[in-house]
């Protein structure tokens, strides 16, 4: 099993190094992610989890090392842009900022994302109802609680076709019910051949036997 997975790596990164304000957050980080796998990045506050996710999502360039998508380098400026846009269209990135525009309603936010991220599923009402937001579709998101706003932003995961999800602390502000819901959605995505990279302080191993943990050590 493990041998066959090696050849189907979606995302590979090697020798990643990130320096912030003269401080080496991490170096020589290698990781591999195959379809159907969940990679849990753990570590103390300030260990560089979010920075690593931003590098993997192509938002920041690593100070050293390389990220490969289906075997093609991404950060290399000489690489053709088709592999980069191929990667971007297979990616669903939700950072620790939710991306929800508070003045707009949940529906209006979803409509914008539908166009921006070419979401195939447009059954907004059903998805919002699944997330326990039935009846709140038409009120501005600023009227909602932090957990409800987080649910709106995570609604993207129910609409997207993207293969790779990169999520920074997706469980923040969610109640137990919503956490369960999200974990079910993760399982479904993994079974359909997707892959997930996330940071969280929740224990993932019991829920997800197929998950691996990469621990970043806090350094000074």
């Amino acid at each position: 099993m493990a041998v066959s997975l090696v050849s189907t790596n979606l995302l590979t990164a090697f020798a990643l190094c990130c320096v912030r304000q003269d401080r080496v957050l991490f170096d020589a980080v290698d990781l591999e992610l195959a379809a159907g796998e969940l990679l849990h990045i753990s570590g103390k506050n300030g260990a560089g989890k979010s920075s690593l996710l931003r590098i993997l999502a192509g938002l920041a360039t690593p100070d050293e090392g390389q990220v490969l998508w289906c075997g093609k380098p991404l950060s290399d400026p000489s690489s053709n842009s088709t592999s980069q846009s191929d990667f971007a269209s297979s990616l669903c990135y939700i950072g620790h900022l939710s991306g929800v525009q508070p003045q707009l309603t949940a529906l209006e936010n979803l409509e914008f994302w539908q166009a921006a991220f070419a979401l195939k599923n447009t059954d907004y009402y059903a998805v919002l109802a699944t997330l326990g937001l039935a009846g709140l579709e038409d009120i501005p998101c600023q009227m909602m609680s932090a957990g409800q706003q987080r649910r709106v932003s995570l609604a993207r995961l129910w609409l997207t076709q993207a293969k790779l999800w990169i999520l920074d602390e997706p469980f923040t502000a969610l109640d137990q019910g919503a956490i369960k819901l999200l974990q079910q959605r993760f399982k479904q995505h993994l079974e359909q051949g997707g892959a997930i990279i996330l940071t969280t302080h929740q224990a993932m191993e019991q829920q997800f036997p197929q998950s691996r943990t990469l621990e970043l050590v806090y350094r000074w």
Partner: protein
Amino acid sequence: MVMFKAAFVREWRLLARQKADWLNPLMFFVIVLTLFPLGVGAKPNLLAEIAPGIVWIAALLSVLLGAERLFKEDFRQGTLEQLVAARDPLFPYVLAKISSSWCSTALPLLLISPLIALLLGLSTAAWQAIVLSLLLGTPLLNLLAALGAALTLSADKGGILLALLILPLYIPLLIFASAAVDNATLGLDYSAQLAVLAAMLCLAAALVPLAVLKALRLNVG
């Protein structure tokens, strides 16, 4: 195209809900222009003489006033980050931002220009020149303001920095636009000045969106 439309609609919804965003620059423009006749006194000839410069400086400052908010909110909420990660939607998003900012800050100026002409005692010919020069010049103002907003995005107190960065770039525009109106008040031909404005607009329209794109990527990364 789908993305451009969606981003444009989103901007209009936001403008409808945050009326201060487009009303404040407009009020600023009107108030500055009413202050001049009060300050200069009842000298219609002097007013008509300095009117081109006043109108253009007020327009320039009011566009600048509305510029800072352009990308700020989306940057703070993380929308921009997600758009940069998705790559393709960023360019239509930038175009939608710039065009909707022109509709919300510059178009109202054009609409109230007859009132302004009345206020400053301008002739019909001068008013026509003001409308034409605003029509060609304000998109340029918005393009450059968007560039400044994108560059100063992650700066904490970006407002003054934005003004310092962008105002020098407005100088050529100011010179040719007020020259056009000046010529009109003297009854001379001003098509040359308008042609220069159009040329500057074409150059900026071709290059500035790309620069904004790059600046947004830099600020997010």
